């Protein structure tokens, strides 16, 4: 099926030019990075822009830069770029682990991490991972740049904090440093490519605090603050795990859909959380499974 909707296409050579185009097109503009969501949505007719603004002509957005303790991922950094990056693998292994289970080779070569959070679907793999890393979304607005905390980014299914006329130019993440452990567990219908039926991200910090987030089991990716409070300062023993698992129903609101029934999601969340917590804590303590090992 061809794309029946007609639109204009521009590939600006600078951010200024991109903002100019957005100003002219108003709410009729759609931003294009990797296109793996946008082109599918154009074909389905769920987005009907008058103008598609391709960011791939804007210089400098494709880089992964480490500066001090902070790592910056430009808006055009793809999942494949993240997998191939020594900086990501060494400093943000949670992103590396997540990127390897997002989509398939041909999707990872094109899809961008920033685009993933701009699409803002509840099952986006980047969501829970960036939530526990407390990433900052760098947004270029007509009047200048603003920094949007990822924890306030997701407003609803496909709804984000990105406002009219704004462009995401990248993500900034403070690396959790040596001695942290992390884990992303993704449940899917097959080992190859699938959207998440459920996702759990855990960050275990050297001070024995934890950050936990879920994907695909609420209208947006969600941070699990009650679980974090319950686990703060504790070793990941059976008692801690039982208490954490007991809070899952308070932190999530899964539904049944074409990818998984409600009952299946409810059954699997405690299993996934337990394994993710154990693996993240063990990785912090230096004896966990290698990053990238499938835990489910």
């Amino acid at each position: 099926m061809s794309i029946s909707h007609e639109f204009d296409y521009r590939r600006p050579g600078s951010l200024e030019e991109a903002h100019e185009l957005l100003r002219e097109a108003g709410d009729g503009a759609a931003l294009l990075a990797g296109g793996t969501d946008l082109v599918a949505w154009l074909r389905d007719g769920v987005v009907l822009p008058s103008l598609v603004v391709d960011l791939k002509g804007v210089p400098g957005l494709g880089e992964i830069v480490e500066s001090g303790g902070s790592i910056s991922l430009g808006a055009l950094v793809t999942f494949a770029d993240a997998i191939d990056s020594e900086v990501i693998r060494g400093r943000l292994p949670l992103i590396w682990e997540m990127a390897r289970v997002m989509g398939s080779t041909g999707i990872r070569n094109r899809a961008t991490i920033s685009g993933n959070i701009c699409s803002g679907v509840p099952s986006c793999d980047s969501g829970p991972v960036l939530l526990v890393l407390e990433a900052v979304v760098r947004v270029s607005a007509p009047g200048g740049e603003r920094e949007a905390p990822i924890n306030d980014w997701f407003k609803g299914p496909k709804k984000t904090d990105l406002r009219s006329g704004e462009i995401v130019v990248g993500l900034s993440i403070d690396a959790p440093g040596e001695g942290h452990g992390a884990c992303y567990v993704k449940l899917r219908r097959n080992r190859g490519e699938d959207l998440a039926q459920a996702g759990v991200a855990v960050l275990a910090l050297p001070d024995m605090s934890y950050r936990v987030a879920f994907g695909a089991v609420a209208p947006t990716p969600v941070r699990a603050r009650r679980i974090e409070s319950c686990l703060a300062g504790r070793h990941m023993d059976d008692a801690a795990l039982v208490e954490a698992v007991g809070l899952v129903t308070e932190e999530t609101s899964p539904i049944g859909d074409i990818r998984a029934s409600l009952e299946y999601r409810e059954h699997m969340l405690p299993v996934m959380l337990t394994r993710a917590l154990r693996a993240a804590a063990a990785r912090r303590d230096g004896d966990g499974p290698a990053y990238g090992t499938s835990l489910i």
Partner: protein
Amino acid sequence: MKREITLNVNGEEWTVAVAPNETLLEVLRDRVGIKSPKIGCERGDCGSCTVILDGKTVRSCLVLAVEADGHGVLTVEGLSRDGITGLQQAFLDKNSFQCGFCAPGVILTASELLAKNPHPSEHEVKEALAGNLCRCTGYTPIIDAVLEVAERGGVEDDG
């Protein structure tokens, strides 16, 4: 709102007038006459429309033709212009394909894998090919063929 774009397809320069809502897949098949990328799911799931764009496999159903302006596309037609590759011969030897609909995508994805990682493990082969769906073979003869090429030293002899 058609505009002229220039594509390098399998080493040949093509100038084509396209509308912004035409996909790379449609332009390759209907204008350039390259038929190996197949129209399958048209939503990026099946992998049958795979082409290599600037050295990386992409879903040509999810790329607008205008995005590819000035870029290089490689398909199976270009890959085997000077005869089939060692990988393709291994697929033949193992009877890897039945209907053949997935074959171009599988060949390109496996070629990309072997170029990047000449000696992949079975797990790595399965991971790389996970986005190329085959409904005939159960994948075993496909994976066997890629592993055979990997064992005899990758794709150096593929020219």
